[in-house]
């Protein structure tokens, strides 16, 4: 079954319908009787790319574009369920005067500035070690450090809620072997934050390490050889070759980790429920509480938009600062 010659555009390659091949009925309406004819006209070389992206665009419109727009509209209204009144920027004004929002934002920011550099530094260290040919059993270590990032947040959360238990947790027991007194992880505001940071770091360091490892293996060996001929030591080689070569991946991990941390929800939800004394309440958790506990959709949407604004500003800033060459 080939197309009528007149419809064929040799430059872009001829499209042919086959007996078995249509876009599997998704997005296209199939009427048994007229199927052949319909198909023939659908699959022209010009239409093929549009048919290919159609499922993605449809899904994008329904589950991304529409919700993003609708969310903004909802953020301008107050009321319950379908009974909404336009209220302008009232929700945003409320947000600025809401001490709990600022607490949540402060907690999130604190976790961000402590956790992301700590994690990415560790990840780089692990990646450099993994990249060394002098290390034995490399595949085993690589596998091991990657494993935590496979675990779901809930599984990791319940696991650590017991490991961090004050009286009988594994961590305090291990620390006691070194003579450290029991720490009230999760029970005191300061240590609860440390605990959340520890768990996130445990969870994602290996993932970032594998990303860095990928980047390291993409650095041309000749660069190092040339530098060694010029007499550059390991430190010099690291700063003059490795870091600049890794920059795209560093940028990617910084941006992704920032987005992830700003949206932090699952870990504190499972570990601490936001406590004690709101010390681990995050913006997303506060959003969740407002939207799905108090059903204040308007206010929750305003929180979502405030968060989106912060995320995109930070993202743009990071790309500006780190990605000048791209």
């Amino acid at each position: 079954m080939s197309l009528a010659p007149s419809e064929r555009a040799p430059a872009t390659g001829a499209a042919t319908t086959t007996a078995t091949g249509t876009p599997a009925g998704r997005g296209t309406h199939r009427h048994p009787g007229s199927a052949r004819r319909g198909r023939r006209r659908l699959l022209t070389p010009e239409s093929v790319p549009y048919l290919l992206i159609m499922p993605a665009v449809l899904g994008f419109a329904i589950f991304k574009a529409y919700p993003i727009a609708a969310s903004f509209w909802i953020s301008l209204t107050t009321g319950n369920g379908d009974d909404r009144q336009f209220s302008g920027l009232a929700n945003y004004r409320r947000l600025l005067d809401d001490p709990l929002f600022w607490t949540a934002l402060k907690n999130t920011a604190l976790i961000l500035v402590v956790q992301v550099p700590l994690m990415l530094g560790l990840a780089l260290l692990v990646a450099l070690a993994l990249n060394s040919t002098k290390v034995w059993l490399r595949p085993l270590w690589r596998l091991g450090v990657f494993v935590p990032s496979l675990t779901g947040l809930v599984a990791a959360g319940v696991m650590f809620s017991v490991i961090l238990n004050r009286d009988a947790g594994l961590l305090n027991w291990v620390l006691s072997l070194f003579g450290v007194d029991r720490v009230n992880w999760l029970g005191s505001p300061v240590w609860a934050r440390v605990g959340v940071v520890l768990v996130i770091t445990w969870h994602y360091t290996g993932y970032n390490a594998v990303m860095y490892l990928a980047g390291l293996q993409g650095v041309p060996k000749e660069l190092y050889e040339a530098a060694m001929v010029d007499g550059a030591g390991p430190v010099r080689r690291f700063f003059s070759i490795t870091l600049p070569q890794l920059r795209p991946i560093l940028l990617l991990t910084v941006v992704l980790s920032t987005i992830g941390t700003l949206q932090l929800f699952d870990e504190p939800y499972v570990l601490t429920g936001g406590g004690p004394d709101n010390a681990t309440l995050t913006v997303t958790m506060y959003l969740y509480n407002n939207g799905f506990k108090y059903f204040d959709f308007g206010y929750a949407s305003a929180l979502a938009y405030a968060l989106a604004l912060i995320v995109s500003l930070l993202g743009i800033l990071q790309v500006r600062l780190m990605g000048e060459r791209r």
Partner: protein
Amino acid sequence: MKLRGTLLTVLLAGAFGLCVGPFYWLAMAATQDNRDVFSWPPKLLPGGHLMENLQGLQESIGLTRVLLNTLLVAGLQTVGAVVVSVLAGYAFAKFDFRGRNLFFVLLLSTLVIPDTVMLIPIFQMMMDLGLIDSYESVILPGLVTPFGIFLMRQALRSMPDELLDAARVDGAGELRVLWRIVIPVNRPIIAALALFVFLGGWNQFVWPLIALRSPEMYTLPVATATLQGLATTNYAQVLLAGAIAAVPVMALFLVLQRQFISGLLAGATKE
């Protein structure tokens, strides 16, 4: 030089221990009696209560049903998202068409918009459609993954055009080219993408927590979290649920490790 290798190996072994150690403890704790989970020092050898805990989970959350729910949701999401990503990625990588860059940038821009922005409208949409508490409500929003489309576009871009044109000259239609050449050649990266999506679907939490109402519809993460909230939490059971959530994922990863890592590499280094 030998010393440096030894030092690095010790460092990595330490990192390995920190990463894997908690899992060992988890596996052991899941076989204890509830009281023994909180014994001091912690029990680091298997206890004899695995079957008992499994039975407890079956009674409290309906373990079999919950596992099947999770498998169904993650499985369908994987198939759907991979199909959508491969089709769109192929179009973005290998076709020149009006609006290509616009569509692509729009798709990608949603990567930086927090998912939480979309939660409430999608929730309302699902309410209006009467889909709350259904499999569809959990599966559908996960079908479009900008990351997947991006990954596939990056991978397919490096395919030589000659390969595709040769097939076209031989009279193969676009779908045949896709099915017979593009997909087989890129099987490793497609497998990696499938694994990524499956992981995401298997572990997703916030949205199912919102979209699902009745305990028999719960996925494993949601069921586990609700179990933990109870006043008389049986921690041995909660931990067993956590271990059960982790096991298939790791098994799958072990089997597909090479593809997974190469997929990660492809996404990270190609430009």
